């Protein structure tokens, strides 16, 4: 892969990214892809900070994701 992949949680607030893949157990993966985090999907990091959970906007709606899960989603930054 040409672009460097990173964890979703490491994105800065306001940055946009593209989902590469979701790691983790079947249940969580299924849930995340059902919520629209399929590979190739664009999203924007809306909110992070001292909070554990992050808020992203994806497919026209907002999702809150716990940091444990957010660390298991591989993404690349969209320039």
């Amino acid at each position, binding site marked *: 892969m040409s672009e460097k992949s990173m964890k979703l949680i490491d994105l800065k607030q306001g940055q946009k990214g593209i989902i590469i893949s*979701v790691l983790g157990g079947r249940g969580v993966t299924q*849930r995340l892809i059902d919520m*629209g985090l399929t590979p190739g999907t664009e999203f924007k990091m809306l*909110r992070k900070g001292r*909070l554990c959970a992050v808020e992203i906007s994806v497919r026209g709606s*907002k999702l*809150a*994701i*716990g940091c444990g899960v957010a660390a298991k989603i591989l993404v690349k930054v969209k320039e």
Partner: protein
Amino acid sequence: MKKITIALAGNANVGKSVIFNRLTGLHQHIGNWPGKTVERAEGTLFHSDYTIDIIDLPGIYSLSTFSMEELISRDYIAKEKPDVVINVVDATNLERNLYFTLQLLELGRPMIIALNQMDLLKKKGISINIKKLQNFLGVPVVPVIATQGKGIHDLVHEAVRLAKGEYEKPKIEYGKEVEKEIQMLTKSLNKIKLDYPQRFLAIKLLEGDEEIKKMIEEVDPNIIKIVEKHAKKIECFHGHDRSTVIASERYKIANEIAKDCVSLGPSRVKFSDKLDEITTHGVWGYFIMIFSVVTLFFIIFTFGNFFSDILVGSLMNVRSIFEQYFGTGIASKLAWGIVEGLIAGITIVLPYILPFYVILGLLEDSGYLSRIAFLMDRFMHKIGLHGKAFIPLILGYGCNVPACLGCRIMETKRERLIAIFVTTLIPCAAVTTVILGLVGKYVGLIWAFSLYVIDLIIVFILGRIAFKVLPGEPTELIMEMHDYRMPDLKTVTKQAWFRIKDFIYIAFPLIIACSFIIKVLDVTNLSESIENMMKPITVDWLGLPVFSGIALIAGISRKELTLITLATHGSTTNFAAILTPVQMIVFSLVMMLYIPCVATVAALVKEIGWKKAIFITVFEIVFAIFVGGIAFRLLTL
């Protein structure tokens, strides 16, 4: 009279229950799905010469096996075969909603799309080409503004038309490669006769759905090998695992349809976005949260106190009337016990629990509670829960019974158990009246407040222990945060009513029965011997007066009875004359922790079974006495 069954299905927070309420009005019945702790709402509608049964399915995002709700929904549609499925779709969030729509279509029932929140669409400067959408999906699309009742009639009209058989099965195809495998697999399944359509089975098998796989294995194990072959092919072709491939394909279709049908106006920063930003802010968000929660409690308990005093005053007048008619003999005293139980129930529901749940419902429906869940996620993780558990926890401050039932929003059994356990430690409205009436009034508000802080610390510690002791991985927060909106008053009051109904059905009979039993103890002078039996605990270990024993027993029926019993057995309502400040604090502390009242125990049994319910109850009694004794020794140092 002809009968039709309609199922309402859709994502969470799309206005499904508003539509349900509009359709059924007062003809509703809320129960559980057989053998499951998932709510089942059913209602009836009479339309020309049709009796229409309406089932409100749980709000879900997919038909996989992620949760009980998803399984129940797909089983219901496939097995019970409702005449029509109305898929409620949030017009402002078409893509995500269509993902679910596509899965519903695969179940093959006649379907209508209720395109809801059309009013918000205009506000957001979005427009949707309904004709186009209809053509894409191949099913009728009815624009609806549920909160204003617009489009509801059209929905019923369409549903009746479809139920008569005027329905053509739509055909939505996946991408070329995947579609080829689906069609081939569907052919291999043509001898399989199950409740589900073959195409649905084929897609689910390709996805790797365990439940469906089990079902097929029982009928024809050879098919699994064929499935494996097809699934490998699509995995190879797309380079992702099978479930991801299918989901991606589905989202691709949803995206294409949405793109083609939706035209966006100039986007502007919305007020709701700004509100979202500030209420989830790392600093301001917490300020606002604390402010709103404190305000909520302040309003409820000042208002509640005021109203409750009036209510108690007027209802207690009933006593003299009662005694005029029935005299003051033993039989009359016992009968009064029943009336008193009823009155007590009313004086806690009307002034405290009802307003609490209405205001909380407003916050919930507006979208604010999910912001609090987001803010509290980190804290809740320390006790092995995620942010959403905050919602039943805060419900617990009203009454523990609906709060326990509210723990159903947790995804796994393990989390439900932890959430229920900590919820029973939350001081409910009745406990608060005692704390305020005893410690707040005679020792000082600071001490009363400290009790709440101590309680939260205990919740935290015990929650953490439960989290460490119980086996299993914690699940994480994955939650849609819908935009802020004006709450719908009708939905909110109905929700509050259903929560209170839990209390009335479970708690009222028990409260009345216990009130009667306590009167029996009084009349037969048994209470004195019970007090004496409890002496080692109450007097020696807790440093409380002898008559507090019966008050603690009375509290099992309902916590506010502890105060009333103290007054009758201490023969005064001036508690300063019979209790020292330390005794008041110790008494309140024990009362706050020692047992979920009998109604809560009943709710526990209902939700988690006998064994766990008894364990929690016994544990909390022992724990409360232990903590009370320690507090007594610390305070008298």
